[in-house]
């Protein structure tokens, strides 16, 4: 772990224009996330946590403020440059899994690799991750043949396949029952601890947040609480 934060956010603001009315989703966020940290961002609906997720993931551009991901300032990146950021530096885990229904589990993982122009076979290290995730014998199945928990574990593998600087997980247990939620959270924690993977998890569930090293609470577009777990 190096001393430089892998995520540095300074004075981040995001204003959406809905009709004639500007909506200030983020009103000045300052946040550092250390390399290898597991951070939970909690907050009620409309607090701005999803907007923060989108900006850190390069899906949306900030209105004002500085955002540095793994040494790259994304404040003034073009759409194309933000796309490249998503290819190489960010892995996503979504609430609804978002696997492509026409592809097998393995192909869902490989397509992320293909889009990042990563060639060559999967490393043995990565293949061992399939065992850790419990999907080694489910890779030939399409999403419709997988349980919600299995789909989310495939999505985690997809998020990790390009060895991203950060994994962003948006309500990763939102669609899962308690048992599968615990499995997924345990896995995220294991990947964080064992592989030093930086993870930023958005959740509204304090129990899920408890799996993280640190919790940041957002309210009305500002950080309200920043506390270690």
């Amino acid at each position, binding site marked *: 772990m190096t001393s430089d934060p892998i995520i540095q956010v300074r004075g981040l603001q995001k204003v959406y224009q809905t009709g004639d009315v500007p909506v200030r989703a983020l009103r000045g966020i300052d946040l550092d996330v250390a390399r290898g940290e597991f951070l939970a961002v909690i907050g009620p609906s409309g607090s701005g946590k999803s907007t923060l997720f989108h900006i850190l993931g390069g899906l*949306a551009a900030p209105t004002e403020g500085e955002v540095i991901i793994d040494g790259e300032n994304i404040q003034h990146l073009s759409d194309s440059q933000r796309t490249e950021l998503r290819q*190489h530096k960010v892995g*996503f885990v979504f609430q609804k899994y*978002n696997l492509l*229904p026409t*592809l097998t589990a393995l*192909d869902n993982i490989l*397509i992320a690799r*293909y889009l990042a122009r990563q060639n060559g076979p999967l490393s043995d290290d990565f293949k061992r991750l399939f065992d850790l995730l419990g999907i080694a014998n489910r890779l030939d199945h399409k999403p419709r043949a997988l349980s919600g928990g299995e789909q989310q574990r495939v999505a985690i593998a997809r998020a990790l396949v390009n060895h991203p600087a950060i994994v962003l997980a948006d309500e990763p247990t939102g669609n899962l029952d308690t048992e599968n939620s615990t499995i997924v959270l345990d896995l995220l924690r294991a990947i964080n601890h064992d592989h030093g993977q930086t993870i930023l998890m958005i959740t509204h569930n304090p129990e899920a947040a408890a799996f993280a090293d640190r919790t940041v609470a957002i309210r009305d577009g500002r950080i309200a609480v920043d506390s270690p777990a």
Partner: protein
Amino acid sequence: MINKLVFENLKHRWVRTLLTAVVIGVQVTLILTIVGLSEGMLQDSARRARGVGAQIWLKPEGSSSFTLASAQVNEKFVAFVSKQPHVDSALGVLIAQIFGFTSMAGVDYDEFVEMTGGVKYLAGGPLRQPDDIIVDQFYQRQNDIKVGQSLKILNHQWHVAGVIEEGKLSHIIVSLSRLQSLTGNAGRVTQIVVKVDNPANTQTAINQLNAVLKGNLHAVSIDELTSLYNVNNLPPLKGFINVITALSIFVGFLVVFLSLYTAVIERTREIGVLKALGAKPMKILDILIRETLLLAVFGCIIGILLSYAAKAVIMWYAPAFLQVVIVPGWWPVAALIAIVGALLGAVYPGLKAARQDPIEALAYD
């Protein structure tokens, strides 16, 4: 990987894929059948012209090379022509149109048989009475005609005397004098066909005939005549093919547009996922264009196969009215037309997909 995604996408909605490809196929079939029909009709005319056994055809100056010309030639020219050097025999032919592209020919039957070198009777025998009629196997099959039955053509009752092999002048052959009286062309014929004493003398005979008949009739070799049986020499037919081609492009455009548009709407979330994973707009467009090309190629294969089926159906039910041939030379043209139409149809849905905002797309239910 991208090809796998494209293939799996098409396989996933296989009914839509199949229907889209079939519609593209139908447009290809339409083009190929129209072209095949045009070529087939012209080839049929050329084959029947060659089947007479003559080397030279004489027609009025400036008349059409095709069979629908009116009778403008005085029958006395037949005897005159037959006395010219290198002319072995001359036959006056009166062509009367009876339905659509189908016509009947009036000839002196004995001279006709002699010029052709003999006809093969599949049933019955030659013309013996003025109201006898000979039909070829195509006309017989199409109309389920039996020897001995009566047949009403040109508002006249004919007696079917025989059925001959196809490929001799016309699908229907009757006595010249009877057809002249029925059509009000007494003493006139449409054209004169000439057999020369030696095929090597054909050009010499043509030159001599054109010299002596100048201003009345024009002599052409059978090779020249049949070479004129070409779509390029028939501007209305060529125009018709162009209209069908344009319609096909439009149909291809519409069907692919609708198919891809619904696919893009349906796959909004998937497109959002691809974008979130790092797919650039051009990559999304690339995927949809590959899908379109695959659909178009699949449709072309279906279209070519369907054109064989269309040919079989037409040739079974209306061989005397319509002749269809398979024209492989038009396969790439029809394929290109289908692909162009399909790609045009893919432009808007493709751009819509490529421009989709990943956040909105991911939120789409």
